[in-house]
Protein backbone atom coordinates (compact mmCIF):
# COMPACT_ATOMS: atom_id res chain seq x y z
CA UNK A 1 0.00 0.00 0.00
CA UNK A 2 2.79 2.39 0.96
CA UNK A 3 4.64 1.82 -2.28
CA UNK A 4 1.41 2.24 -4.20
CA UNK A 5 0.73 5.59 -2.57
CA UNK A 6 4.27 6.71 -3.17
CA UNK A 7 4.14 5.48 -6.74
CA UNK A 8 1.01 7.51 -7.30
CA UNK A 9 2.61 10.58 -5.83
CA UNK A 10 5.64 10.16 -8.02
CA UNK A 11 3.44 9.76 -11.09
CA UNK A 12 2.40 13.44 -10.98
CA UNK A 13 3.08 15.42 -14.14
CA UNK A 14 2.02 18.54 -16.06
CA UNK A 15 0.84 21.93 -14.80
CA UNK A 16 -1.53 23.67 -12.38
CA UNK A 17 -3.78 26.57 -13.25
CA UNK A 18 -6.31 26.88 -10.47
CA UNK A 19 -6.60 25.09 -7.18
CA UNK A 20 -10.05 25.32 -5.66
CA UNK A 21 -12.19 23.34 -3.31
CA UNK A 22 -9.34 21.37 -1.81
CA UNK A 23 -7.23 22.02 1.24
CA UNK A 24 -5.24 25.19 0.63
CA UNK A 25 -2.08 24.81 -1.34
CA UNK A 26 0.34 27.55 -2.16
CA UNK A 27 1.94 27.09 -5.53
CA UNK A 28 4.69 28.55 -7.60
CA UNK A 29 7.56 30.70 -6.62
CA UNK A 30 7.37 32.16 -3.13
CA UNK A 31 8.92 35.40 -2.09
CA UNK A 32 12.17 34.73 -0.39
CA UNK A 33 11.51 35.04 3.34
CA UNK A 34 13.70 37.36 5.29
CA UNK A 35 15.97 35.46 7.65
CA UNK A 36 15.71 36.23 11.33
CA UNK A 37 18.24 38.64 12.70
CA UNK A 38 21.56 37.02 13.39
CA UNK A 39 20.96 34.09 11.04
CA UNK A 40 22.80 33.77 7.75
CA UNK A 41 21.33 31.85 4.88
CA UNK A 42 22.85 30.82 1.62
CA UNK A 43 21.87 28.43 -1.08
CA UNK A 44 24.34 27.73 -3.83
CA UNK A 45 23.66 25.37 -6.65
CA UNK A 46 25.93 23.71 -9.07
CA UNK A 47 25.18 21.64 -12.10
CA UNK A 48 28.71 20.44 -12.58
CA UNK A 49 29.00 16.71 -12.82
CA UNK A 50 31.16 16.50 -9.75
CA UNK A 51 30.72 13.79 -7.22
CA UNK A 52 28.84 15.06 -4.19
CA UNK A 53 31.05 15.93 -1.31
CA UNK A 54 30.90 14.05 1.94
CA UNK A 55 32.71 16.79 3.81
CA UNK A 56 29.67 18.02 5.75
CA UNK A 57 26.12 16.86 6.38
CA UNK A 58 24.27 18.65 9.09
CA UNK A 59 20.50 18.67 8.93
CA UNK A 60 18.38 19.00 12.03
CA UNK A 61 14.73 19.56 12.73
CA UNK A 62 14.05 20.62 16.28
CA UNK A 63 11.04 22.42 17.75
CA UNK A 64 9.53 22.80 14.30
CA UNK A 65 12.69 24.58 13.12
CA UNK A 66 14.92 23.41 10.32
CA UNK A 67 18.64 23.89 10.21
CA UNK A 68 20.70 22.84 7.21
CA UNK A 69 24.42 23.02 6.66
CA UNK A 70 25.48 20.95 3.68
CA UNK A 71 27.96 21.37 0.89
CA UNK A 72 27.55 20.06 -2.64
CA UNK A 73 24.81 17.69 -1.63
CA UNK A 74 22.66 16.19 -4.38
CA UNK A 75 19.14 17.55 -4.43
CA UNK A 76 17.57 14.12 -4.20
CA UNK A 77 19.59 13.15 -1.15
CA UNK A 78 18.99 16.51 0.49
CA UNK A 79 15.26 16.13 -0.02
CA UNK A 80 15.28 12.63 1.43
CA UNK A 81 17.18 13.66 4.51
CA UNK A 82 14.98 16.67 5.20
CA UNK A 83 11.91 14.57 4.61
CA UNK A 84 13.06 11.94 7.09
CA UNK A 85 13.91 14.43 9.79
CA UNK A 86 10.88 16.66 9.39
CA UNK A 87 8.47 13.79 8.95
CA UNK A 88 6.73 15.10 5.86
CA UNK A 89 6.98 13.80 2.32
CA UNK A 90 8.90 16.03 -0.08
CA UNK A 91 8.58 14.70 -3.57
CA UNK A 92 10.58 15.53 -6.65
CA UNK A 93 8.39 15.30 -9.71
CA UNK A 94 9.07 15.75 -13.36
CA UNK A 95 12.53 15.81 -14.84
CA UNK A 96 14.56 17.77 -12.37
CA UNK A 97 18.15 18.12 -13.56
CA UNK A 98 20.78 16.68 -11.33
CA UNK A 99 22.09 19.45 -9.14
CA UNK A 100 24.41 19.80 -6.22
CA UNK A 101 23.38 22.21 -3.54
CA UNK A 102 25.30 23.92 -0.81
CA UNK A 103 22.83 25.13 1.76
CA UNK A 104 23.34 26.86 5.04
CA UNK A 105 20.70 28.27 7.34
CA UNK A 106 19.63 27.80 10.90
CA UNK A 107 16.40 27.63 12.81
CA UNK A 108 13.97 28.54 10.10
CA UNK A 109 10.36 27.40 10.10
CA UNK A 110 10.15 24.31 7.96
CA UNK A 111 8.20 25.82 5.08
CA UNK A 112 10.38 28.91 5.08
CA UNK A 113 13.51 26.79 4.91
CA UNK A 114 12.11 24.65 2.13
CA UNK A 115 11.11 27.69 0.11
CA UNK A 116 14.66 28.94 0.39
CA UNK A 117 16.09 25.68 -0.83
CA UNK A 118 13.61 25.39 -3.69
CA UNK A 119 13.53 29.07 -4.65
CA UNK A 120 14.50 28.20 -8.22
CA UNK A 121 11.87 25.48 -8.66
CA UNK A 122 8.11 25.32 -9.01
CA UNK A 123 6.62 23.94 -5.82
CA UNK A 124 3.33 22.96 -4.20
CA UNK A 125 2.97 23.13 -0.43
CA UNK A 126 -0.02 21.28 1.01
CA UNK A 127 -1.32 22.46 4.37
CA UNK A 128 -4.12 20.92 6.36
CA UNK A 129 -5.73 21.79 9.66
CA UNK A 130 -5.19 19.29 12.44
CA UNK A 131 -7.55 18.45 15.29
CA UNK A 132 -6.13 21.29 17.36
CA UNK A 133 -7.13 23.70 14.63
CA UNK A 134 -3.54 24.38 13.62
CA UNK A 135 -2.63 24.50 9.95
CA UNK A 136 0.42 22.34 9.32
CA UNK A 137 2.53 21.60 6.32
CA UNK A 138 1.76 18.05 5.23
CA UNK A 139 3.48 17.47 1.91
CA UNK A 140 5.58 19.24 -0.69
CA UNK A 141 5.92 18.61 -4.40
CA UNK A 142 8.87 20.03 -6.33
CA UNK A 143 8.89 20.54 -10.09
CA UNK A 144 11.45 21.97 -12.47
CA UNK A 145 11.11 25.68 -13.02
CA UNK A 146 8.07 26.18 -15.24
CA UNK A 147 7.13 22.54 -14.86
CA UNK A 148 4.38 23.22 -12.35
CA UNK A 149 2.09 24.92 -14.84
CA UNK A 150 -1.24 23.18 -15.46
CA UNK A 151 -1.34 20.84 -12.50
CA UNK A 152 -4.41 20.57 -10.31
CA UNK A 153 -4.88 18.64 -7.09
CA UNK A 154 -7.48 15.92 -7.46
CA UNK A 155 -9.68 14.76 -4.57
CA UNK A 156 -9.26 11.19 -3.38
CA UNK A 157 -12.52 9.92 -4.82
CA UNK A 158 -11.22 10.62 -8.31
CA UNK A 159 -8.34 8.17 -8.02
CA UNK A 160 -9.07 6.06 -4.94
CA UNK A 161 -9.84 2.40 -5.36
CA UNK A 162 -13.34 1.15 -4.67
CA UNK A 163 -12.10 -0.44 -1.45
CA UNK A 164 -10.63 2.87 -0.37
CA UNK A 165 -13.94 4.56 -1.09
CA UNK A 166 -15.74 1.98 1.05
CA UNK A 167 -13.45 2.96 3.89
CA UNK A 168 -14.29 6.63 3.42
CA UNK A 169 -17.97 5.92 4.04
CA UNK A 170 -17.27 5.89 7.75
CA UNK A 171 -15.08 8.99 7.78
CA UNK A 172 -15.96 11.52 10.44
CA UNK A 173 -16.06 14.29 7.83
CA UNK A 174 -19.51 14.35 6.16
CA UNK A 175 -17.98 15.91 3.07
CA UNK A 176 -15.70 12.87 2.67
CA UNK A 177 -18.60 10.48 3.29
CA UNK A 178 -20.77 12.34 0.82
CA UNK A 179 -18.18 12.38 -1.93
CA UNK A 180 -17.39 8.71 -1.34
CA UNK A 181 -20.96 7.46 -1.61
CA UNK A 182 -21.67 9.59 -4.66
CA UNK A 183 -18.60 8.18 -6.40
CA UNK A 184 -19.42 4.63 -5.30
CA UNK A 185 -22.90 4.90 -6.75
CA UNK A 186 -21.44 6.17 -9.99
CA UNK A 187 -18.93 3.31 -10.19
CA UNK A 188 -20.86 0.34 -8.92
CA UNK A 189 -24.37 1.43 -9.84
CA UNK A 190 -26.95 -1.09 -8.62
CA UNK A 191 -24.22 -3.02 -6.81
CA UNK A 192 -23.87 -0.03 -4.50
CA UNK A 193 -27.50 -0.21 -3.39
CA UNK A 194 -26.73 -1.46 0.11
CA UNK A 195 -24.21 1.30 0.68
CA UNK A 196 -26.61 3.89 -0.70
CA UNK A 197 -29.45 2.75 1.52
CA UNK A 198 -27.18 2.94 4.53
CA UNK A 199 -26.00 6.42 3.57
CA UNK A 200 -29.60 7.52 3.23
CA UNK A 201 -29.82 7.11 6.97
CA UNK A 202 -26.76 9.22 7.67
CA UNK A 203 -27.15 11.94 10.25
CA UNK A 204 -25.88 14.55 7.84
CA UNK A 205 -28.26 15.85 5.19
CA UNK A 206 -25.42 16.47 2.76
CA UNK A 207 -24.47 12.78 2.86
CA UNK A 208 -28.05 11.70 2.36
CA UNK A 209 -28.63 13.95 -0.62
CA UNK A 210 -25.34 13.03 -2.26
CA UNK A 211 -26.18 9.34 -1.85
CA UNK A 212 -29.58 9.90 -3.40
CA UNK A 213 -28.30 12.16 -6.16
CA UNK A 214 -25.52 9.71 -6.97
CA UNK A 215 -28.08 6.93 -7.20
CA UNK A 216 -30.31 9.04 -9.43
CA UNK A 217 -27.44 9.88 -11.75
CA UNK A 218 -26.43 6.22 -11.93
CA UNK A 219 -30.01 5.27 -12.75
CA UNK A 220 -30.17 3.00 -9.75
CA UNK A 221 -33.46 1.48 -8.68
CA UNK A 222 -34.29 2.65 -5.19
CA UNK A 223 -37.39 1.08 -3.61
CA UNK A 224 -40.36 3.38 -3.96
CA UNK A 225 -41.16 3.01 -0.28
CA UNK A 226 -37.72 4.37 0.59
CA UNK A 227 -38.13 7.32 -1.76
CA UNK A 228 -41.61 8.08 -0.46
CA UNK A 229 -40.31 8.08 3.06
CA UNK A 230 -37.60 10.53 2.04
CA UNK A 231 -40.31 13.05 1.16
CA UNK A 232 -40.50 13.57 4.91
CA UNK A 233 -36.77 14.16 5.25
CA UNK A 234 -35.71 17.23 7.17
CA UNK A 235 -33.49 18.33 4.29
CA UNK A 236 -35.32 20.10 1.45
CA UNK A 237 -32.54 18.97 -0.89
CA UNK A 238 -33.30 15.33 -0.07
CA UNK A 239 -37.02 15.90 -0.53
CA UNK A 240 -36.42 17.51 -3.92
CA UNK A 241 -34.20 14.73 -5.24
CA UNK A 242 -36.53 12.06 -3.84
CA UNK A 243 -39.47 13.68 -5.58
CA UNK A 244 -37.52 13.84 -8.82
CA UNK A 245 -36.65 10.15 -8.45
CA UNK A 246 -40.34 9.38 -8.00
CA UNK A 247 -41.35 11.35 -11.09
CA UNK A 248 -41.27 8.23 -13.26
CA UNK A 249 -43.38 6.17 -10.89
CA UNK A 250 -46.96 5.28 -11.86
CA UNK A 251 -47.92 6.79 -8.52
CA UNK A 252 -46.01 10.00 -9.18
CA UNK A 253 -49.02 12.26 -9.36
CA UNK A 254 -50.65 11.45 -6.01
CA UNK A 255 -47.21 11.43 -4.41
CA UNK A 256 -46.43 14.85 -5.85
CA UNK A 257 -49.77 16.22 -4.68
CA UNK A 258 -48.66 15.54 -1.12
CA UNK A 259 -45.69 17.81 -1.73
CA UNK A 260 -47.66 20.74 -3.13
CA UNK A 261 -47.57 22.42 0.26
CA UNK A 262 -43.96 21.67 1.10
CA UNK A 263 -42.11 24.39 2.95
CA UNK A 264 -39.45 24.47 0.24
CA UNK A 265 -40.30 26.55 -2.82
CA UNK A 266 -38.15 24.29 -4.99
CA UNK A 267 -40.03 21.18 -3.82
CA UNK A 268 -43.37 22.90 -4.41
CA UNK A 269 -42.26 23.90 -7.92
CA UNK A 270 -41.31 20.35 -8.80
CA UNK A 271 -44.47 19.00 -7.21
CA UNK A 272 -46.56 21.33 -9.40
CA UNK A 273 -44.71 20.16 -12.44
CA UNK A 274 -45.39 16.50 -11.67
CA UNK A 275 -48.88 16.80 -10.25
CA UNK A 276 -50.12 19.22 -12.89
CA UNK A 277 -48.10 18.30 -15.98
CA UNK A 278 -47.68 21.03 -18.54
CA UNK A 279 -50.15 20.63 -21.38
CA UNK A 280 -49.75 23.08 -24.19
CA UNK A 281 -53.50 23.23 -24.55
CA UNK A 282 -54.01 24.41 -20.98
CA UNK A 283 -53.59 27.87 -19.59
CA UNK A 284 -49.98 27.80 -18.45
CA UNK A 285 -50.16 31.25 -17.01
CA UNK A 286 -52.68 29.96 -14.51
CA UNK A 287 -50.30 27.20 -13.44
CA UNK A 288 -47.44 29.63 -13.03
CA UNK A 289 -49.61 32.13 -11.18
CA UNK A 290 -50.71 29.38 -8.84
CA UNK A 291 -47.09 28.48 -8.24
CA UNK A 292 -46.27 32.11 -7.56
CA UNK A 293 -49.06 32.61 -5.08
CA UNK A 294 -49.01 29.23 -3.35
CA UNK A 295 -48.70 29.60 0.41
CA UNK A 296 -46.30 27.07 1.99
CA UNK A 297 -47.22 25.01 5.02
CA UNK A 298 -44.83 23.71 7.62
CA UNK A 299 -43.31 20.44 6.44
CA UNK A 300 -43.55 17.64 9.04
Amino acid at each position, binding site marked *: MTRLILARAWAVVAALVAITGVAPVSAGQQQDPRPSAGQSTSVNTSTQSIKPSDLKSDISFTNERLSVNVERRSLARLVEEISDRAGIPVML*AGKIPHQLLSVKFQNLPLDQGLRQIFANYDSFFFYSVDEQGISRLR*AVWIYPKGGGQGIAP*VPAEKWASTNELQGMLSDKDPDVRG*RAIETLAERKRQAALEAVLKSLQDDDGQVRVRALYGALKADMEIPEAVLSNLLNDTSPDVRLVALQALAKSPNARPIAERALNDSSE*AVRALAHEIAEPSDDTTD*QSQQLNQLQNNQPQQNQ
Partner: protein
Amino acid sequence: MKKHRIVLLAVSLLLIATGALAQEISRLSAQFKNFDGTETTTAVAATGTASVPGTGGALAYSKAVFVPFLSGGQVLYITISAVGDNHNGESNFISCNIDGPGGVGSLATVCNPTPTSFGVDIAPPGWIGLTHHFSYEVTYTSNGLTGLSSGDGGGGTSDEHDNAYYYTWCKRVGAGAHTVNLRLGNHTGPTVCAGCAGANNNVFFEKAFFYIDVSATPPFGACTKGM
Protein backbone atom coordinates in the same frame (compact mmCIF):
# COMPACT_ATOMS: atom_id res chain seq x y z
CA MET B 1 7.39 2.40 8.07
CA LYS B 2 9.05 5.80 8.04
CA LYS B 3 7.06 8.60 9.57
CA HIS B 4 6.86 10.71 6.47
CA ARG B 5 5.38 7.79 4.53
CA ILE B 6 2.72 7.42 7.20
CA VAL B 7 1.92 11.08 6.76
CA LEU B 8 1.80 10.64 3.00
CA LEU B 9 -0.89 7.99 3.43
CA ALA B 10 -3.02 10.60 5.15
CA VAL B 11 -2.57 13.05 2.32
CA SER B 12 -5.71 12.20 0.49
CA LEU B 13 -5.09 14.05 -2.68
CA LEU B 14 -2.97 13.65 -5.70
CA LEU B 15 -1.57 16.20 -8.07
CA ILE B 16 -2.42 15.18 -11.53
CA ALA B 17 -2.02 16.60 -14.97
CA THR B 18 -5.01 18.46 -16.29
CA GLY B 19 -4.76 18.39 -20.04
CA ALA B 20 -8.18 20.03 -20.31
CA LEU B 21 -8.34 23.17 -18.18
CA ALA B 22 -12.04 23.83 -18.79
CA GLN B 23 -14.69 22.40 -16.51
CA GLU B 24 -17.25 19.85 -17.69
CA ILE B 25 -20.74 21.18 -18.20
CA SER B 26 -23.49 18.93 -16.95
CA ARG B 27 -27.05 19.35 -18.17
CA LEU B 28 -29.50 19.31 -15.27
CA SER B 29 -32.64 20.00 -17.26
CA ALA B 30 -33.83 20.30 -20.86
CA GLN B 31 -37.48 21.20 -21.44
CA PHE B 32 -39.71 22.77 -24.08
CA LYS B 33 -43.10 24.44 -24.31
CA ASN B 34 -45.49 26.06 -26.81
CA PHE B 35 -44.95 23.72 -29.71
CA ASP B 36 -48.66 23.23 -30.37
CA GLY B 37 -49.69 26.63 -31.61
CA THR B 38 -49.94 28.18 -28.16
CA GLU B 39 -47.80 31.02 -26.89
CA THR B 40 -46.58 32.28 -23.55
CA THR B 41 -47.70 35.85 -23.30
CA THR B 42 -48.21 38.83 -21.06
CA ALA B 43 -48.99 42.54 -21.22
CA VAL B 44 -47.57 43.27 -17.76
CA ALA B 45 -44.72 45.74 -17.78
CA ALA B 46 -41.25 44.75 -16.73
CA THR B 47 -40.12 46.81 -13.75
CA GLY B 48 -37.19 47.03 -11.44
CA THR B 49 -34.76 49.35 -9.71
CA ALA B 50 -31.10 49.12 -8.93
CA SER B 51 -31.96 47.97 -5.43
CA VAL B 52 -34.87 45.69 -6.37
CA PRO B 53 -34.26 44.48 -9.91
CA GLY B 54 -36.22 41.96 -11.95
CA THR B 55 -39.74 42.73 -10.77
CA GLY B 56 -42.96 43.10 -12.69
CA GLY B 57 -43.87 41.13 -15.78
CA ALA B 58 -45.24 37.62 -15.37
CA LEU B 59 -43.68 34.32 -14.43
CA ALA B 60 -43.13 32.51 -17.75
CA TYR B 61 -41.06 29.49 -16.77
CA SER B 62 -40.07 27.88 -13.49
CA LYS B 63 -37.96 24.81 -12.87
CA ALA B 64 -36.58 23.31 -9.66
CA VAL B 65 -33.27 21.49 -9.89
CA PHE B 66 -30.75 19.99 -7.52
CA VAL B 67 -27.31 21.48 -8.08
CA PRO B 68 -24.68 18.86 -7.24
CA PHE B 69 -21.64 19.42 -5.06
CA LEU B 70 -18.72 20.22 -7.36
CA SER B 71 -15.13 20.91 -6.40
CA GLY B 72 -14.53 24.64 -6.20
CA GLY B 73 -18.14 25.70 -6.28
CA GLN B 74 -20.84 25.67 -8.89
CA VAL B 75 -21.87 27.92 -11.77
CA LEU B 76 -25.36 27.57 -13.21
CA TYR B 77 -26.12 28.34 -16.86
CA ILE B 78 -29.69 29.19 -17.82
CA THR B 79 -30.64 29.26 -21.50
CA ILE B 80 -33.82 30.17 -23.33
CA SER B 81 -34.08 29.41 -27.03
CA ALA B 82 -37.38 30.57 -28.53
CA VAL B 83 -39.25 32.68 -31.07
CA GLY B 84 -40.71 36.00 -30.03
CA ASP B 85 -43.49 38.34 -31.14
CA ASN B 86 -44.56 41.75 -29.96
CA HIS B 87 -47.74 43.75 -30.41
CA ASN B 88 -47.70 47.49 -30.97
CA GLY B 89 -43.95 47.53 -31.13
CA GLU B 90 -43.53 46.62 -27.48
CA SER B 91 -40.11 45.55 -26.27
CA ASN B 92 -39.95 41.87 -25.36
CA PHE B 93 -38.15 41.67 -22.02
CA ILE B 94 -36.96 38.56 -20.17
CA SER B 95 -35.70 38.39 -16.59
CA CYS B 96 -34.00 35.44 -14.92
CA ASN B 97 -33.74 34.83 -11.20
CA ILE B 98 -32.66 31.93 -9.02
CA ASP B 99 -34.84 31.32 -5.96
CA GLY B 100 -36.57 34.67 -6.22
CA PRO B 101 -39.32 34.67 -3.59
CA GLY B 102 -42.55 33.84 -5.36
CA GLY B 103 -40.63 33.76 -8.61
CA VAL B 104 -39.97 37.51 -8.44
CA GLY B 105 -36.47 38.92 -8.77
CA SER B 106 -34.42 40.63 -6.10
CA LEU B 107 -30.90 41.97 -5.80
CA ALA B 108 -29.50 38.64 -4.64
CA THR B 109 -31.47 36.42 -6.96
CA VAL B 110 -31.49 38.00 -10.43
CA CYS B 111 -29.19 36.37 -12.95
CA ASN B 112 -28.05 39.70 -14.41
CA PRO B 113 -24.67 40.21 -12.78
CA THR B 114 -25.10 43.81 -11.68
CA PRO B 115 -28.16 45.96 -11.32
CA THR B 116 -27.93 48.95 -13.59
CA SER B 117 -30.06 51.75 -14.69
CA PHE B 118 -32.11 51.17 -17.81
CA GLY B 119 -29.72 49.75 -20.37
CA VAL B 120 -29.27 50.58 -24.04
CA ASP B 121 -31.97 47.98 -24.63
CA ILE B 122 -34.18 50.17 -22.32
CA ALA B 123 -34.75 47.10 -20.16
CA PRO B 124 -35.27 47.86 -16.45
CA PRO B 125 -32.64 46.62 -13.99
CA GLY B 126 -32.65 42.83 -13.87
CA TRP B 127 -34.17 42.46 -17.34
CA ILE B 128 -32.86 41.81 -20.85
CA GLY B 129 -34.43 43.17 -24.02
CA LEU B 130 -34.48 40.22 -26.38
CA THR B 131 -36.62 41.50 -29.26
CA HIS B 132 -38.12 44.79 -30.29
CA HIS B 133 -40.41 44.88 -33.36
CA PHE B 134 -42.27 47.36 -35.51
CA SER B 135 -45.67 47.29 -37.19
CA TYR B 136 -46.38 46.99 -40.89
CA GLU B 137 -47.35 50.64 -41.35
CA VAL B 138 -46.02 53.68 -43.19
CA THR B 139 -45.71 55.25 -39.81
CA TYR B 140 -45.33 52.86 -36.96
CA THR B 141 -45.93 52.54 -33.27
CA SER B 142 -43.33 51.65 -30.69
CA ASN B 143 -43.51 51.55 -26.91
CA GLY B 144 -46.53 53.80 -26.62
CA LEU B 145 -45.52 56.35 -29.23
CA THR B 146 -47.41 56.57 -32.54
CA GLY B 147 -46.70 58.19 -35.87
CA LEU B 148 -43.08 57.12 -35.86
CA SER B 149 -41.37 56.77 -39.20
CA SER B 150 -37.67 57.24 -38.73
CA GLY B 151 -36.97 53.69 -37.82
CA ASP B 152 -34.96 52.18 -35.02
CA GLY B 153 -31.24 52.86 -35.16
CA GLY B 154 -31.56 54.07 -38.75
CA GLY B 155 -33.24 50.93 -40.03
CA GLY B 156 -36.37 52.62 -41.36
CA THR B 157 -39.88 51.23 -41.33
CA SER B 158 -39.75 47.48 -40.98
CA ASP B 159 -41.43 44.56 -39.43
CA GLU B 160 -39.46 42.01 -37.43
CA HIS B 161 -41.94 39.44 -36.17
CA ASP B 162 -40.96 35.93 -35.19
CA ASN B 163 -37.33 36.61 -34.55
CA ALA B 164 -35.51 33.86 -32.79
CA TYR B 165 -34.13 34.87 -29.48
CA TYR B 166 -31.50 33.01 -27.57
CA TYR B 167 -29.90 34.02 -24.31
CA THR B 168 -27.76 32.34 -21.66
CA TRP B 169 -27.09 33.65 -18.18
CA CYS B 170 -24.47 32.37 -15.78
CA LYS B 171 -24.80 32.62 -12.03
CA ARG B 172 -22.74 31.24 -9.20
CA VAL B 173 -24.83 29.18 -6.80
CA GLY B 174 -24.36 26.89 -3.85
CA ALA B 175 -25.03 23.19 -4.08
CA GLY B 176 -28.54 22.08 -3.25
CA ALA B 177 -32.09 22.73 -4.39
CA HIS B 178 -32.72 25.82 -6.48
CA THR B 179 -35.62 27.18 -8.50
CA VAL B 180 -34.89 28.84 -11.81
CA ASN B 181 -37.48 31.44 -12.80
CA LEU B 182 -37.88 33.31 -16.07
CA ARG B 183 -40.22 36.29 -16.26
CA LEU B 184 -41.68 37.86 -19.40
CA GLY B 185 -42.64 41.51 -19.60
CA ASN B 186 -43.24 44.40 -21.98
CA HIS B 187 -42.32 48.06 -21.77
CA THR B 188 -45.62 49.95 -21.57
CA GLY B 189 -47.94 47.63 -19.65
CA PRO B 190 -51.48 46.82 -20.77
CA THR B 191 -52.65 50.32 -21.64
CA VAL B 192 -52.95 50.51 -25.41
CA CYS B 193 -51.98 53.83 -26.95
CA ALA B 194 -54.64 55.83 -28.80
CA GLY B 195 -54.76 54.88 -32.45
CA CYS B 196 -52.47 51.92 -31.96
CA ALA B 197 -53.09 49.02 -34.25
CA GLY B 198 -53.88 45.76 -32.51
CA ALA B 199 -56.03 45.19 -29.46
CA ASN B 200 -53.31 44.75 -26.90
CA ASN B 201 -49.68 45.38 -25.98
CA ASN B 202 -48.84 41.75 -25.42
CA VAL B 203 -45.41 40.26 -25.93
CA PHE B 204 -44.97 36.56 -26.64
CA PHE B 205 -42.64 33.70 -27.04
CA GLU B 206 -43.38 30.30 -28.49
CA LYS B 207 -41.59 27.11 -29.54
CA ALA B 208 -39.22 27.54 -26.64
CA PHE B 209 -36.49 25.28 -25.28
CA PHE B 210 -35.06 25.80 -21.80
CA TYR B 211 -31.73 24.38 -20.68
CA ILE B 212 -30.26 24.44 -17.19
CA ASP B 213 -26.62 23.42 -16.98
CA VAL B 214 -23.99 23.43 -14.28
CA SER B 215 -20.23 23.31 -14.12
CA ALA B 216 -17.62 23.57 -11.45
CA THR B 217 -16.26 27.09 -11.19
CA PRO B 218 -14.30 27.64 -14.41
CA PRO B 219 -10.63 28.46 -13.80
CA PHE B 220 -10.34 31.41 -16.17
CA GLY B 221 -13.64 33.13 -15.57
CA ALA B 222 -15.88 32.19 -12.66
CA CYS B 223 -18.95 33.95 -14.05
CA THR B 224 -17.04 37.16 -13.46
CA LYS B 225 -16.79 40.44 -15.28
CA GLY B 226 -14.76 40.42 -18.50
CA MET B 227 -12.66 43.19 -19.93
